[in-house]
């Protein structure tokens, strides 16, 4: 067992300079081009799940002509099975603030915001205290970069970047059409970099270690490490920082309970991988990407119940703005119930699969588009459980 242990990494929660802001002070003295070059070289991709290259996002915002720009930290962590951002914000908030300030310097932003989900409101007093100290420190470095915390109010969709801007602007959290993208038209219509909590911490660690050392971790397509939220049927649930690019069978060997039937990678909007595919599945951008959520299910679990639970979730959290998602989520849920009850023949599942594929093409944002991920991967791999 000890031989097969996955390599543990300690970048995110490691001690480095979390107390003294040394990395921040050093980085603020560097040229913007050099910082961007290091980020580019590191191969860092966004840690929220979508995996957009961070350096490119920053460069686009830096090049956008505007006197007013914003940096936003997306702490609206709502994907089922994900809890890493809460842990990062409560354990190493200074690294998050530092990463935001570095971004502010590089793109020329005057202000940063943290959009914190209301379910994590209990973190507010401690974060506010930390922010006060941060502002004091950064003032001494001769750099003015105020960060403000904005609270969400219980809407999963606000984790979608343009819905998050709408929410911050006082509207319903309904995603916008893209393009234009946030790097030119973000919060208040101004160029905005919005990154996941973990991404900002990664930036700080790349600044501290240099891109070469960061690149030693992971694979060509998935550089670095990742904080994983492990839950479900596992004897050791919790937060683990592991290298990207690991094969799923090794993950299950270490975290499973010996009877793992399936792993849901990337939360309700991610993919369900059945046992027979563990060996050929790589966790990373070249295989199955994840924002960190890893939920294990053992053979005592009904995958029908799992899918039903996801569809309840999507039906409630769909913003309702576009028809494919609003009606599609309802119909998928009603559909699997009807098949299970015998009101519809098993062949109806094929029609539902087609519906989910249509949603993938026609829904306006990532929520409606990604329902098909879990729907098709569960229905196709566990068809008998859907019917009998």
């Amino acid at each position, binding site marked *: 067992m000890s031989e097969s242990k996955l390599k543990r990494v300690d970048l995110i929660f490691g001690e480095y300079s979390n107390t003294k802001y040394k990395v921040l002070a050093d980085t603020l003295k560097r040229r913007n081009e050099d910082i961007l070059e290091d980020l580019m070289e590191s191969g860092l991709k966004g840690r929220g799940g979508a995996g957009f290259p961070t350096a490119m996002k920053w460069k686009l915002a830096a090049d956008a002509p505007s006197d007013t720009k914003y940096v936003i930290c997306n702490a609206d*962590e*709502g*994907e*089922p*099975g*994900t*809890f890493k*951002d*809460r842990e990062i914000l409560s354990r190493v908030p200074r690294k998050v603030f530092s990463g935001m300030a570095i971004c502010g310097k590089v793109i020329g932003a005057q202000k940063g915001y943290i959009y914190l*989900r*209301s*379910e*994590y*409101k*209990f973190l507010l007093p401690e974060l506010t205290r930390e922010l006060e100290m941060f502002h004091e420190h950064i003032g001494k470095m001769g750099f003015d970069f105020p960060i403000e915390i*904005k*609270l*969400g*109010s*219980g*809407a*999963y969709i606000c984790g979608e970047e343009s819905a998050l801007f709408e*929410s*911050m*602007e*006082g*509207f*319903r*959290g*309904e995603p916008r059409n893209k393009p234009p993208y946030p790097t030119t038209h973000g919060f*208040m219509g101004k160029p905005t970099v919005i990154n996941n909590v973990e991404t900002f911490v990664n930036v700080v660690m790349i600044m501290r270690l240099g891109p070469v050392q960061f690149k030693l971790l992971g694979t060509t397509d998935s550089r670095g490490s990742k904080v994983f*939220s*492990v*839950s*479900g*049927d596992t004897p050791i*649930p*919790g*937060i683990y920082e592991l290298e990207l690019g690991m094969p799923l069978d090794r993950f299950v060997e270490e975290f499973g309970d010996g009877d793992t039937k399936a792993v849901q990678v990337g939360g*309700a909007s991610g993919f369900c991988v059945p046992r027979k595919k563990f060996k050929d599945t790589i966790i990373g951008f070249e295989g199955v990407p994840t924002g960190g*959520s890893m*939920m294990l299910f053992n053979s005592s*679990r009904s995958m029908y*119940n*799992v899918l039903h*639970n*996801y569809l*309840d*979730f999507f039906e*409630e*959290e769909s*913003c309702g703005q576009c028809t494919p998602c609003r009606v599609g989520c309802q119909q998928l849920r009603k559909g699997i119930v009807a098949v299970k009850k015998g009101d519809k023949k098993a062949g109806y599942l094929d029609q539902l699969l087609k519906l989910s594929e249509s949603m993938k093409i026609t829904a306006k944002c990532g929520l409606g588009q990604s329902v098909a991920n879990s729907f098709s991967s569960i229905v196709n791999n566990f068809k008998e459980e859907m019917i009998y």
Partner: protein
Amino acid sequence: MTNEHLIRDLVKKHGRSRVALLPILQGVVDANNFISDSDMVEIAKELDLSAAQVFGTATFYSFLSTEPLGKYVIRVCKTITCDMHGKKQIVQTIEEMLKVKVGETTPNKKFSLLETNCLGWCHEGPAMLINEKPFTGLTPERVHDIISEYISKS
């Protein structure tokens, strides 16, 4: 403090622009646990919006109730891993103790019992919030103790 005073104070703090709307609505919920129709009209007047715009924003968010809720709002996580680890027994225990069903408020207006989507405590489920405070690793016994303590609070 009357609600008009509350809203005026919140407007003073957050301003009259549209970006102030969510913090103002949140402020009303912090004070009263819900936003009434007259609150929405009042906020609309202060921010020079239509009441429909305020209503539209308020009703979008699950933590901004437009129906009266109790002093303590219990939100039990119903998403998959909490569900797998015994959410039903937790809800049942609370229902029996408070004699309400999910979605209801006790007659003395002290407790509301709700279910909610993923709270971000999947590794320590089942989990719930009472107002903003999280409770994790719940068992029927533990939740019994927690609710008893809240019942004895004034």
